[in-house]
Each structure stands twice: as structure tokens, then as C-alpha cells.
């Protein structure tokens, strides 16, 4: 990443690029996450929004709930720090919803701003992939045929 001489060289030292992390039982806002990763030096922001699908493995999803372990925010921070160590991240944010969600509700929003778009895409992809694997969050689905499932557990 090229830094110009007037490019506020102290910026990265003074501002933590990890701008917003959260596990929340209230509705998520894409706009809040995008505002959190605003950075005058960043040209590109890649975002990922996970929403509740109306189907999974061919069955109709009626309702879905997420729960989390108390260590989830700490593990999310660990994942974010790994992404910041791997890519020239200007700003990063990730929030995950818990509680009861309906089809179409936003379950997770991840965003990474970088000077260039290739880095932003790669960093955002790592952030969401590792969030899903490393952060202790569980998903319980109820189907319209009356069955239910803890995703991945059985």
C-alpha cells in the first residue's frame, strides 16, 4: 500500500482498524456497519450480509434462532485481529445477531475497507469464513413440516 507524504502517516498507529464488533440480540443495520468502516484513505469496502433463507437442504424454513457462548465476542475479536494481521486493512467491522429471526432478517454483517478492492474482498471473505468456523454461535432451525434442527450438530 503506497502512502503519500501527506497521508497522515500516524493514522494507522493511532486508530485501531477494528472499528465495531458485536454479538447482539437486536436487529442489525447495514448502514451502521458501513458508517463504522468509513475511512478517508480507503477506496474500497467489501461487505457481506447473511440473511435468513426460506429454505435449507430442500426444506422450508419457518423460524430460526441463534444463541452464543459468553466467549463469542472475544473469539470474534481474535478472528478480526487475524484478518488485520493478514491484510492491509484500513477499517473492519462485524456484527452477529442472536435470538429469534424471521426469513429475510439479517443474521450477520461483515465489512472491510482497504485502499484497493482486491484486498478488501479477500479480507472480508476471510472475516466471514473464520467468523463462521471460530466464533461459538449456534443456529437452531424450525421447518414448516414440523421438524427442527441444530445446524451441524447431528
Amino acid at each position, binding site marked *: 500500500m503506497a502512502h503519500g507524504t501527506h497521508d497522515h502517516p500516524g493514522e494507522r498507529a493511532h486508530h485501531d482498524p477494528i472499528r465495531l464488533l458485536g454479538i447482539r440480540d437486536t436487529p442489525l443495520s447495514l448502514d451502521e456497519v458501513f458508517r463504522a468502516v468509513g475511512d478517508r484513505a480507503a477506496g474500497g469496502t467489501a461487505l457481506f450480509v*447473511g440473511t435468513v433463507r426460506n429454505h435449507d437442504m430442500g426444506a422450508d424454513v419457518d423460524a430460526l434462532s*441463534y*444463541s*452464543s*457462548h459468553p*466467549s463469542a465476542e472475544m473469539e470474534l475479536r481474535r478472528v478480526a485481529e487475524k484478518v488485520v494481521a493478514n491484510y492491509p486493512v484500513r477499517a473492519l467491522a462485524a456484527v*452477529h445477531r442472536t435470538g429469534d429471526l424471521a426469513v429475510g432478517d439479517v*443474521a*450477520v454483517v461483515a465489512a472491510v475497507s482497504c485502499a484497493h478492492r482486491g484486498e478488501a474482498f479477500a479480507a472480508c471473505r476471510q472475516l*466471514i469464513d473464520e*467468523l*463462521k*468456523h*471460530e*466464533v*461459538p*454461535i*449456534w*443456529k*437452531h432451525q424450525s421447518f414448516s413440516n414440523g421438524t427442527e434442527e*441444530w*445446524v*451441524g*450438530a*447431528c
Partner: protein
Amino acid sequence: MAKVTVRFWAAAKAAAGVAEEPYDAATLADALTAIRERHPGELTRVLMRCSYLVDGDPVGTRPHETVRLAEGGTVEVLPPFAGG
């Protein structure tokens, strides 16, 4: 033998029917054997996919018989994560 609290999360809690139970066990392997004896059905199946925290720390890939439990400690049973 140590007296420990075993805490079940998510699918494991649903299968156990309780959030936590007391056990007497010297190692994580002993505790898991005791859990399987007390809950031979669904919980035993779920356990095959779980990871564990002992006193809050991830056990990771350590052999369970080498993980010693402390008096008054906790074992947490975490089913596979499925965020996003």
C-alpha cells in the same frame, strides 16, 4: 477425582435436558465417559461432534485422557459452531 460442573450448550443442552450437572472425574476422558453413561441417547451422538472448554480454555486437539480436571472446575460442552 475432582468434583466438577459440566455445562451443556445449544444442541448438547437440548439433548441433556439440563444446562449443567455435577460430575466426579479426574480427567476430561473420565468426565465424558460418565456423561455418556448418564445420557446414552441423543447426547452421546451430539458429543461426537463437540469441542470442550476446561475452566474456560479450549482443549483443542489434546488427548482427553491427558486433560486433568481441578476440584471445583468446569467442563463446557460446545456443539459445532454455525454462525452466519
